[in-house]
């Protein structure tokens, strides 16, 4: 590791502009984490034009620092609503609801929030240290990757995001495949033949992924939320004594440690990320507990584990993006888009070519998490007040930011209409059970997959077995086959065993998936 570059990174972060953007990012993140409705990916999508604006002022690093802050900040905020209102602010805080709200009912909301904040901080910091140490090593390996490796890796990423995510796998795969198809619109980079342009000039340069993401995530979610009935006012539970006692800390520290490690590893996996990590950590805590029946009735480990894990995962999911250039989940796809928007090519060369950006962003997370820890314990009361702001007031504000923002990217009214079209598609997808996440991720990676595939075919002189005979791409192909084969095998086994019982309601992961899908 280049130690000087690491230290210089701190010099980058502590520049007043960058510190300010970091603060704004984590504050926005925490805010949207607290407010149910908009997720981090949607918020990042909506704010991409602002990143673009900042970058054209020469603040590339600041823009990325801010967007990164939104993602990990949201993990802190999501906890607050889970504990106080029984509403997960984010999908990654769904499991926190069980024990967090039970604790709140027993008058221990403060303890739950305090432990969650400490666990979040520890989890995130463990992951940043991992990122700091491992990032350069992974990047130096990835420098040797050729087109076949990239084709296989990007395809594996798309596949995992589709199969691991919420909801029906076939539907997620459909969404991903359509995303790959959308990426081919425009003139072909190899032969410059027009594809799916329908003889329009606007489509010749392809569909701008920022516009697509803002439509599918931003407008889609805004429209979808319009339909929600807001009959009941949210009355948060009262909180007292936010500082956890020494006994609570002692009881939850093993859970925090386990959660951090689980989160770190699941975050690195494509398709993993914060949601899966929090579920896995909860399951792990329940498994190692002496008395598993305590879970769901106010076990502090049930808050500590998942909250440490989701922050650790949120942080470690930056590793594949910053070192290989492959986003591991939909939020990272937004950051990938943001890097391209500010004119930086994500990939293993990033760390050498733009050490200021790499280390600036990585080190901003140390500082951002310190800010979050400082904010989330003493200022919890203020965030609770924000919960009283009616969603009806926030909706037009987000709508306006989205429309005005998308216009400013290219000063183009055409973009507004493309975004609205994708917004309606996104709404209809959510209504019919298709997740827009895999589509956006596949769309962002689409041109990389295609160009790598075609370069590989030229390299192999038309022999597709070349993918398997190269060691690294071969291993990745084996993974791809496993990911495809595993669910099919499971399905066959389940069909066979459940021929006398028509349905299997006791599958816990399915239950969680449905709950997570609500957000």
């Amino acid at each position: 590791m280049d130690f000087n570059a690491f230290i210089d990174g701190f010099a980058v972060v502590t520049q007043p502009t960058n510190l300010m953007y970091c603060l704004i990012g984590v504050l926005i993140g925490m805010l949207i984490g607290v407010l149910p409705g908009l997720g981090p990916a949607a918020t990042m999508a909506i704010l991409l034009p602002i990143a673009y604006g900042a970058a054209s002022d020469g603040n590339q690093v600041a823009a990325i620092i801010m967007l990164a802050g939104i993602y990990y900040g949201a993990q802190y905020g999501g906890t607050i609503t889970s504990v106080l209102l029984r509403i997960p602010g984010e999908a990654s805080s769904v499991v926190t609801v069980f024990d967090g709200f039970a604790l709140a009912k027993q008058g221990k909301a403060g303890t739950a929030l305090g432990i969650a904040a400490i666990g979040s901080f520890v989890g995130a910091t463990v992951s940043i240290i991992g990122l700091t140490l491992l990032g350069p090593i992974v990047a130096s390996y990835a420098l040797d990757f050729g087109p076949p490796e990239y084709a296989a890796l990007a395809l594996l990423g798309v596949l995992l995001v589709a199969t691991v995510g919420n909801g029906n796998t076939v539907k997620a795969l459909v969404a991903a495949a359509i995303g790959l198809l959308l990426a081919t619109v425009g003139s072909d980079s190899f032969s410059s033949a027009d594809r799916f342009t329908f003889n329009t000039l606007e489509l010749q340069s392809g569909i701008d992924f920022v516009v697509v993401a803002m439509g599918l995530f931003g407008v889609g979610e805004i429209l979808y939320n319009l339909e929600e009935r807001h009959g009941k006012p949210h009355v948060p539970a009262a909180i007292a004594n936010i500082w956890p006692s020494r006994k609570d800390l002692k009881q939850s520290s093993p859970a925090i440690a386990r959660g951090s490690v689980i989160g770190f590893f699941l975050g690195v996996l494509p398709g993993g990320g914060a949601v899966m990590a929090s579920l896995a950590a909860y399951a792990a805590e329940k498994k190692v507990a002496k008395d598993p029946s305590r879970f769901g009735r106010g076990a502090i480990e049930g808050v500590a584990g998942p909250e440490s894990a989701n922050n650790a995962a949120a942080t470690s999911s930056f590793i594949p993006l910053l070192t290989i250039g492959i986003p591991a989940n939909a939020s990272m796809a937004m950051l990938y888009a943001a890097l391209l928007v500010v004119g930086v090519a994500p990939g293993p060369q990033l760390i050498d070519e733009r050490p200021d950006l790499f280390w600036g962003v990585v080190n901003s997370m140390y500082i951002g998490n310190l800010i979050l820890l400082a904010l989330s314990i003493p200022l919890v009361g203020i965030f609770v007040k924000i919960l009283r702001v009616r969603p009806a007031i926030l909706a037009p504000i987000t709508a306006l930011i989205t429309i005005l923002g998308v216009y400013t990217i290219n000063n183009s009214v055409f973009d507004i209409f493309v975004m609205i079209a994708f917004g309606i598609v996104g709404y209809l997808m959510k209504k019919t059970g298709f997740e827009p996440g895999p589509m956006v991720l596949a769309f962002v990676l689409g041109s990389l997959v295609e160009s790598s595939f075609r370069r590989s075919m030229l390299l192999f002189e038309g022999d597709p077995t070349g993918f398997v005979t190269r060691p690294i791409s071969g291993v990745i192909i084996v993974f791809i086959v496993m990911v495809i084969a595993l669910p099919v095998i499971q399905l066959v086994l389940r069909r066979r065993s459940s021929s006398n019982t028509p349905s299997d309601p006791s599958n816990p992961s399915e239950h969680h998936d449905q709950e997570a899908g609500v957000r």
Partner: protein
Amino acid sequence: MTMSERETRTADEPDILAELQAEVARDLAEERPPAGGPAYQVIPALVVLVLGAGAAYLAHGYGLGSLRRPGPGLWPFAVSVLIMVLAVVLLVVGRTLDDAEKFTRSSLLVLVGAATFVGLGLLLPTLGFEIPAILLGIVWLRFLGGETWRSTIVISVATTAVFYVLFLYGLKIPLPHLIAF
């Protein structure tokens, strides 16, 4: 700690877990429309199938080339075929899924919301952003959100003013605007 916790549980909360689960289920059922029937599964699958078929037809026309020399149409054609296959799978196995939501009367709100987006897009180049933005605010706050007229006006005007400062001065992004200083 564990002892006292369990004591309180048996004393005043017979089973928090069961209670919580029931509450969550009730809330979710209240906030979202009910699940749609088989038509909600079949129609999207058919749309996907048609999309895949259309794309495959077009891609074929762009020239597939060979594996040795892939043409511009090869990759989109392969993806389109995949889309068609997945759509057929969905038609076969997906008919009984219950992950789709019914369209209800409140879905009309979404239509109105989308219409205001289109309206702003149409008016922006000619009228500048201020008046359309205030109009959008009024529709969303008063008619979609049920706010009072007073807060509707205050919030719409204030939001537009903040955006004016943010975009034109803060970010120095040129938006079409009426009022110039």
